[in-house]
């Protein structure tokens, strides 16, 4: 495995309206790393993920990707896949149509079709019904199907296990394994532990700013 870090967080701090949330956060992730952000409710996991997507900017410190500071440039975004709390799925469209739209925005993996991606996500029976008729877990699966489809190195996932049943969690774990073997990086937040080996843990509460 490569030893030069791909993603580096350098002395990162975030304050919202001058109210500090976390500080002095430094981490380096190499190809093949899987990191779980854990910590009590409200410690800033979602905020940290948003910073990594460039949706928020850090108050101090910087985030480097391949040695360069990230700044919403297309180069970084092209390597990034983010799935947040909201699934990002149009309820009026079918799962297949949603995936087609996803391909309009992002580069696809080689050798994969929308059909196989949806099958892998366990949606074989409901590819062509409007997503408004899907259950909470099925909707999350549609969102996660994008991970099978897209060609991205860095995955940022905010509580990806929400609403998933045990089969879907097992599928996701094996997907994580495949991605790390291919040299990808996964950063995800969750309150549940995954049953894959070598997951690095970032206990965010340790970096909570002292003033708080």
């Amino acid at each position, binding site marked *: 495995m490569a030893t030069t870090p791909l993603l580096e967080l350098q002395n990162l701090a975030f304050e*919202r*309206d*001058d*109210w500090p949330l976390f500080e002095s956060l430094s981490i380096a992730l190499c190809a093949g790393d899987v990191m779980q952000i854990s910590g009590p409710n409200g410690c800033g996991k979602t905020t940290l993920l948003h910073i990594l997507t460039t949706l928020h900017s850090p108050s101090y410190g910087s985030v480097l990707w391949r040695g360069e500071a990230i700044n919403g440039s297309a180069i970084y975004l092209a390597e990034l896949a983010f799935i947040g709390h909201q699934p990002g799925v149009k309820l009026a469209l079918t799962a297949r149509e949603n995936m087609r739209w996803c391909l309009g925005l992002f580069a696809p993996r080689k050798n994969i079709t929308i059909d196989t991606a949806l099958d892998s996500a366990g949606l074989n029976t409901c590819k062509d019904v409007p997503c408004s008729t899907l259950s909470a877990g099925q909707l999350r699966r549609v969102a996660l199907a994008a991970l099978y489809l897209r060609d991205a190195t860095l995955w940022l996932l905010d509580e990806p296990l929400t609403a998933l049943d045990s089969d879907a969690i097992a599928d996701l774990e094996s997907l994580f394994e495949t991605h790390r073997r291919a040299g990808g990086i996964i950063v995800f937040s969750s309150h549940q532990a995954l049953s894959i080996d070598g997951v690095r843990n970032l206990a965010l509460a340790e970096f909570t700013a002292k003033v708080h």
Partner: protein
Amino acid sequence: MWQSILKFIQKWFHRFGSPRWFYQTTGKWLPYLAVISVGLLVLGSIWGLGFAPQDARQGNSYRIIFIHVPISVLAMIGYYVMAAAGAVALIWKIKIANMVMVSAAPLGAALTFLALLTGSIWGKPTWGTYWVWDARITSMLILFFLYLGVIALNQAFTSRDTAYKACAILSLVGTVNIPIIYKSVDWWYTLHQPATIKLTGASSIHPDMLKPLIVMILGFYCFYALVLMLNTRTEILAREWRSSWVRGLSQ
């Protein structure tokens, strides 16, 4: 040489950009500014209301000019003050400029409202009605809406930082559009111009009326600066109350 000037400007900007520096410096200016503006306003009022000659056509009712005209002028300038502050904040990311911008909005809206009010009051004796759809009046009304948009937007956000950026963008978009809006309203009015109403230009004004008017305009300028500073100081305290220097103030 140019670089050192640029550096100097930058350094000054950033020093000026510190809310603490702004608060402490303006604190020293406030008393002087207050004395000057009150002095000018009192002088101008006495001069204008008591000693300036009567208008040939309008009698004494014209004397509202001494309030109406300065307020109208400031109301328009106020928008550019706000937009300029917004631009500075967006480009150089200077905190204090944001605070000036959001403090200028309600002040400008209040002035615009007063301009509309004093104008209406003046309209009754002059035109026999409180309101006509004249170009200048209509533009003023639209300006009022532009101000209200910025105020409402500012209030709607929970995150102060986002509110600042959003207001800055809106006031810049507004600035680009103001000339277009004014021109189109002017053009619209000339199309429809009803013959009954005539707004004469300021050129017809008698020099004895002009002098107190200038004093009043200067007085209102100082007054505007004074209120803007006070507003901004309040905004600073509201924003920075956690910082140690603000806490130190109350002890």
